[in-house]
């Protein structure tokens, strides 16, 4: 399918100026792209696992509605983010073809779409499960839009450290949908995603720093250089691994999760170690085309999916560790 904007020659013939690219309605796929479907996948999965391991039962229809609300809310936040970041998206190679900078959807339409979905997902969550879960869901959207997108992203190299909290909400929302409250376990799951975010995004930013620099986004490699960023990737992975073991150590999960967390943690540490010791010149520029950072980025994605998958498996596999 051709996703390029379609231009139409105006009434004046070939010499007349081209009409705005948005004269043709966007395709359904463009609206879907506004929701950042790849990000939603991770959010839905961690939210679902939070819902699964929470004590108590939620009717499958209501559970489905809760997961749907988490997905739609994440998409809404993504659409509002694309509306706000349309100027920097246009100059970054990675994002230049998104629907707004690509001219396929007008900025105001994207904002309206995001706001409607945000309000609708919050209301449906409240009606289907409980209003505490809806409040946490709303807080996650507001945090992502106002704290991360509008404030931190363009003002500090610590943007993704604090802003990463937005992506850590879903397991808590899933838990809250079942229980109507929070406990130690959902906070641990929050902490795991929170600590996973910096090494994940900084690994990406190591090989996409030119894009961020062009857009004026103060990502760590742009402001402090690649050498500092590599150290921070290692540091946060070192913090993440022991925290990922806490659900097992504190008795909230069994050995299936615990042993998986150990193995996956060792793998992620190895990836971060390779990033730290990447061959580099005196100024820290990679001499390997950032191959270790690219690998670490992929490892980080598999790590989080596998870790939460192990938690789900641990819950589903019968064993004496389930009280």
């Amino acid at each position, binding site marked *: 399918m051709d996703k390029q904007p379609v231009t139409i020659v105006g009434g004046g013939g070939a010499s007349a100026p081209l009409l705005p690219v948005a*004269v*043709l309605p966007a395709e359904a796929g463009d*609206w879907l792209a506004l929701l950042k479907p790849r990000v939603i996948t991770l959010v839905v999965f961690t939210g679902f696992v939070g819902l699964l391991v929470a004590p108590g039962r939620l009717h499958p*229809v209501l559970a489905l509605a809760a997961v749907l609300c988490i997905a739609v809310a994440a998409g809404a936040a993504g659409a509002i983010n694309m509306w706000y970041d349309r100027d920097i998206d246009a100059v970054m190679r990675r994002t230049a073809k998104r629907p707004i900078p690509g001219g396929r959807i007008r900025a105001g339409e994207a904002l309206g779409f995001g706001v409607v979905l945000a309000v609708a997902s919050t209301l449906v969550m409240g009606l289907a499960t409980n209003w505490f879960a809806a409040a946490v869901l709303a807080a996650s959207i507001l945090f992502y839009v106002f704290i991360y997108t509008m404030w931190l992203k363009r003002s500090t190299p610590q943007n993704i450290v604090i802003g990463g909290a937005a992506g850590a909400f879903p397991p808590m929302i899933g838990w809250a949908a079942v229980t109507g409250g929070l406990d130690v376990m959902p906070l641990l799951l929050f902490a795991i995603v929170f600590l996973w975010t910096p090494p994940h995004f900084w690994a990406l930013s190591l090989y996409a720093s030119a894009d961020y620099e062009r857009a004026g986004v103060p990502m760590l490699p742009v402001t402090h250089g690649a050498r500092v960023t590599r150290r921070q990737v290692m540091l946060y992975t070192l913090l993440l691994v022991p925290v990922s073991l806490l659900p097992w150590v504190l008795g909230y999960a069994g050995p299936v999760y615990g042993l998986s967390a150990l193995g996956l943690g060792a793998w992620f540490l190895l990836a971060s170690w390779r990033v730290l010791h990447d061959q580099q010149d005196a100024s820290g520029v990679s001499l390997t085309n950032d191959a270790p950072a690219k690998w670490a980025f992929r490892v980080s994605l598999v790590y989080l999916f596998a870790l939460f998958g192990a938690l789900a498996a641990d819950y589903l596999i019968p064993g004496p560790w389930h009280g």
Partner: protein
Amino acid sequence: MPSRMTTAETAELRRRQRGKNIALVAVLAALALLFYAIAMVKFKVS
């Protein structure tokens, strides 16, 4: 809407309008089904 469009452009416009309409109908139907299911479950629970 431009005053003159080529046949190919008109066809593209129609294709996109049709796709948008189908997507909207699907979303509305899914929403109606979701609200119905939530209401039924809530009635049963209470």
